[in-house]
C-alpha cells in the first residue's frame, strides 16, 4: 500500500461507490455528538429537530419537483398551461414557513437563555489562547499550566516526518497536560487570548467560544459523565491553528481534589529551583524538554526554523551572540513578529534552561550558560 492511500481510505472509496451497507457508516462519524452536559443534549435535540424538519420539507419540495420533471415534459405530449400566479397558494407557502420557523424559535430561545445564565458557578478556570497552545489558570486554587500538542504527535505531523499518522491514537487530539475538571460541578470558563483570536471548543460540552485578546468571554459547563473529551481551536489563528488541541478530563470530585493538590505541589517545586546553582547537564536536559513544547513549532526540532517567517536558531546572531540579547528576546519577545514574550509563559528555571539549550545544541556550541537566578533578576 502506498504512503498516502491507506486501507481505510480504500474502504471509504468503495463505500462511497455504494458497495457497502449504510450501517457501516456509523464508525466514521456522521452526526453531531450528544455530548455530556444537559446543554449539549438540548443543542443536539435542537439540531435533530431542525434536521428532521428540513428533511421533511426537502422530501415534499423535491418530491413535487421530481414528479413534475417526470410528468410535465414535452416528450410526454403535455401542453403547457399558462397560469401565472395563484394568490391562495402564494399565501400558503408564505404562512407555513413562518409557522415552522416559530416552532424552532421557541426552543432555541429557551436553550440560548439557559446557556447565557452564568450564575452560581462553583469554580472558575481562566483559559488563555497562545499561538499555538492553551493556558489554564485555576483561579480559586491559584495554579495554572500550559497545554500543548503532545510531542510525539508534533513530531509526526511535520512534513516528511516519515511517521504513519494512522498508527497514532487520537492523532492531533492529544496534549501534554489535559485540563482536569470535577463532574457534577457548575464550572465557569473565562476565555481570553494573549495574541490573536482563538476559539476554545470541546464538542461534548456543546459550545465553542472565541478567546479574544484584551477581552474576557465567559461560558459555563456542568459535565455529568467522567471521561476524556477532545476538541481543538476553532478560529484560524495562524500557521499552527490545526495543532492546538483541547483535552478535557472530567473526573469524580475526590480525584479532582487530589489532582489539584498534586499540581500545586508540583508547581511549587518547579519554581523552587530558582535560588540554587544549576549544572550544565541539568539545564540542558530541562532545556530540551522546554524547547520541544515551547519553541519547536516555529524554530523546528533541528533548529533550522522556517525562514523567512521563523528564523533558524542554528548559527543565528542571537543564539550565538551576546547572551544578554538572547535573554531579553526570550523574555520580552520581538515586537512586530510572532515571537512571543516567554517571560509571561515560562518560569525562570525553564527560561534559563531553554536559553542554555539553544546555545549549546541544535548545532550551536557557544559553551556559556545562564542561571535561573539571573533570569529572575533580569525580569
Amino acid at each position, binding site marked *: 500500500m502506498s504512503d498516502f492511500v491507506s486501507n481505510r481510505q480504500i474502504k471509504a472509496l468503495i463505500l462511497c461507490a455504494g458497495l457497502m451497507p449504510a450501517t457501516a457508516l456509523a464508525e*466514521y462519524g456522521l*452526526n453531531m455528538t450528544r455530548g455530556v452536559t444537559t446543554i449539549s443534549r438540548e*443543542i443536539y435535540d435542537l439540531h435533530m429537530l431542525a434536521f428532521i424538519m428540513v428533511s421533511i420539507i426537502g422530501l415534499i419540495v423535491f418530491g413535487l419537483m421530481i414528479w413534475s420533471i417526470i410528468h*410535465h415534459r414535452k416528450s410526454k405530449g403535455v401542453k403547457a398551461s399558462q397560469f401565472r*400566479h395563484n394568490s391562495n397558494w402564494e399565501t400558503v407557502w408564505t404562512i407555513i414557513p413562518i409557522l415552522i*420557523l416559530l416552532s424552532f424559535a421557541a426552543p432555541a430561545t429557551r436553550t440560548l437563555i439557559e446557556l447565557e445564565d452564568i450564575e452560581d458557578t462553583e469554580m472558575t478556570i481562566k483559559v488563555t489562547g497562545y499561538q499555538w497552545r492553551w493556558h489554564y489558570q485555576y483561579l480559586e486554587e491559584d495554579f495554572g499550566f500550559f497545554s500543548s500538542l503532545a510531542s510525539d504527535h508534533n513530531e509526526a505531523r511535520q512534513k516528511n516526518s516519515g511517521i504513519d499518522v494512522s498508527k497514532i491514537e487520537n*492523532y492531533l487530539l492529544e496534549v501534554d497536560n489535559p485540563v482536569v475538571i470535577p463532574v457534577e460541578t457548575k464550572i465557569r470558563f473565562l476565555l481570553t487570548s494573549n495574541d490573536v483570536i482563538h476559539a476554545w471548543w470541546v464538542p461534548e460540552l456543546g459550545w465553542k467560544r472565541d478567546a479574544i*485578546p484584551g477581552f474576557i468571554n465567559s461560558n459555563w459547563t456542568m459535565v455529568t459523565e467522567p471521561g476524556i473529551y477532545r476538541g481543538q481551536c476553532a478560529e484560524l489563528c495562524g500557521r499552527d491553528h490545526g495543532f492546538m488541541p483541547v483535552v478535557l478530563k472530567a473526573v469524580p470530585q475526590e480525584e479532582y481534589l487530589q489532582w489539584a493538590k498534586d499540581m500545586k505541589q508540583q508547581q511549587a517545586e518547579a519554581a523552587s529551583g530558582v535560588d540554587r546553582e544549576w549544572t550544565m547537564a541539568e539545564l540542558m536536559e530541562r532545556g530540551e524538554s522546554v524547547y520541544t513544547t515551547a519553541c519547536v513549532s516555529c524554530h523546528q526540532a533541528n533548529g533550522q526554523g522556517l525562514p523567512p517567517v521563523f528564523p533558524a536558531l542554528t548559527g543565528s546572531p542571537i543564539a550565538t551572540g551576546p547572551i544578554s540579547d538572547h535573554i531579553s528576546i526570550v523574555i520580552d519577545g520581538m515586537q512586530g513578529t*510572532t515571537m512571543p514574550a516567554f517571560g509571561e509563559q515560562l518560569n525562570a528555571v525553564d527560561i534559563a534552561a531553554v536559553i542554555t539549550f539553544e546555545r549549546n545544541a541544535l548545532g550551536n556550541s557557544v559553551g556559556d550558560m545562564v542561571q535561573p537566578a539571573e533570569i529572575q533578576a533580569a525580569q
Partner: protein
Amino acid sequence: MSEAVLNGVEHQHDHHPTGIKRWLFTTNHKDIGTLYLCFSLLMFFIGGAMALVIRAELFSPGIQYVDPQFFNSMTTMHALIMVFGVVMPGTVGFANWMLPMMIGAPDMALPRMNNWSFWILPFAFTLLLMTLLLPGGGPAGGWTMYPPLMLQTEHALPFVIFAVHFMGVSSVMGAINIVATILNMRAPGMKLLDMPLFVWTWLVTAFLLIGSIPVLAGAVTMLLTDKFFGTSFFDAAGGGDPVLFQHVFWFFGHPEVYILILPAFGVVSQIIPTFARKPLFGYVSMVYATCSIALLSFIVWAHHMFTVGMPLAAELFFMYATMSIAVPTGVKIFNWIATMWRGEMTFETPMLFAVAFVILFTIGGFSGLMLGIAPVDFQYHDTYFVVAHFHYVLVSGAIFSMMAGAYYWLPKWTGYMYDEKLGKLHFWLSVVSVNLLFFPQHFLGLAGMPRRIPDYSTQFSEWNAISSVGGFVFGFSQLILVWVIIKSARGHGEKATAQVWEGANGLEWTLSSPPPYHSFEVPPKISRS
C-alpha cells in the same frame, strides 16, 4: 449618436479598432461583457487550482505536500479569488451582455466608465496574486481578514488591502452603471414591473453593492492604519476592539452573500420559464421577495459571529432576523417549482443546470437555516458544516447558475449552438462530483472537524478522501466547459436562430444571433401580454 451623424448614411456602427486595441479601448457593452466573462473563467481556474492544492493536502491525514502557512494562504486566496474574481465579475459580465438587450437599450448608460471598471480588475488581481511571490508569502489570515491575525501578515498586507480597494472601486462603478442603465435606458413603455427578473435582481444587487462595498473599504483601511500608522481601531491595548472589525466586515459580508446569489436567482428565473414553455409563476412576488431579501441582508450580519460573545438580546435579534430570510427565499423556490408545474419541459443543458441549482441551492438553504439557530451554531460554527453550507450555495448555487446562463446565452452571443452532448457530459460530471465533493463535508463538520486546518485527526480520513476525489473530478470536468465555449465561439455548430430556444421570450431574443454591435439603435415597441 454623433458618430452616426459623422458617418452619414453608411452607419453600420460595427466598425471598431481591431486586435488588442479593440479590447483595450472598447466601450461596447458586449465586448466588455465578454472581457468580464473571460476574466471570470480564467480566475475560476486559478482559484480552482488553489482549491485542488487544499484538497490534495487534505486527501489523507498528515502533512504531505505544503507547509501549513502556505495552506492557510491557499484557503485565503482561493476565497478572495472565487468571490471577487469569479462570481462578481462573472455576473457583471452577464449584466453587461444582457441588460441592454433585455431592456431595449443600445448600450450601457456609462460606456467609458464601463471600460474602466473592467480594466481595473486585471491590475487588482495581479496585485493580489503577486503576494505569493513576496517574502513571507501571501495573505494567510483568511478571506475575512480578522485582526489581530491579519496584522501579523508580512509584506503581503498592503498589497491585499489595495487589491481589495481596486476590486471595490470596480464593483461600485459597475453597480452605478447598472443602476443608471436600468433606470434611464429602458425602451419607452417598459415599466419597472415589465422588466425581466434578471434585470430586477441586478437592479437590487447594484444597490447592495453601492451600500456595502464602501463599508469593506473602510474596514480594510482601518487595518492598514492599524498596521502602518499607529492607530488602534482593533487593538484592545490602545482602546480598540478586534470584534469591531468583525462587525464592520460582516456588515459588508452578509449583503455580499446576496450580491453573489441574487443575479443567480435572476438567471434561473429566465431559464426555467423558457424550458417549461410557461410564464414565470408569481412574477410580482419574486420581485418583492428579492427586495425583502436585500433589505433583510443588512440586519443579519452578526449571525456570522455568534461565538464572539454578544449580549443575549443581540444574539436573539440576529437569530430571529436570520430565520426570517427563509420566508422570501422559500417563496422564490416555491415559485420556481410552480413555474415548472404543468409546463411542457425539455431538458437542454441550461435547464439541467437550472434544475440542479434549485435542488442544491435549497440544500444549502436548509443548512443555512440550521446555522441560523444560535445555540446550535455554537457547535456548527467554524466547522466543515459551514464549509459545506456555503459551497452548496456558492458552487452548486451561484456557479451552477452561471454555467446555466453561459449555455443559455452562448448561442445568442456567438451565433452558433453549443455542442449539446458535451454540455450534458459537463453537467452530469459536475453535478455528481460537486455532491461527492461537498456533501461529506456536512458529516465532517458535525463529527467535529474545524475548518481551515491543513491536517486532521484520523477519524476524519474517509470523508476527506471522498471529498478530495470529488474535488479533482469536479475541477477537471470544467475543462469541458472551456472546450464547449471555444467550439461555439469558433463557429463549430449549428447556426442559431434569433429566438434560439423554442420557449424563449423577451427582447433579447428578437435580435439576431449574434446580435448587432449596438443592440437597439431604434427603441423596440413594448407589447404587453
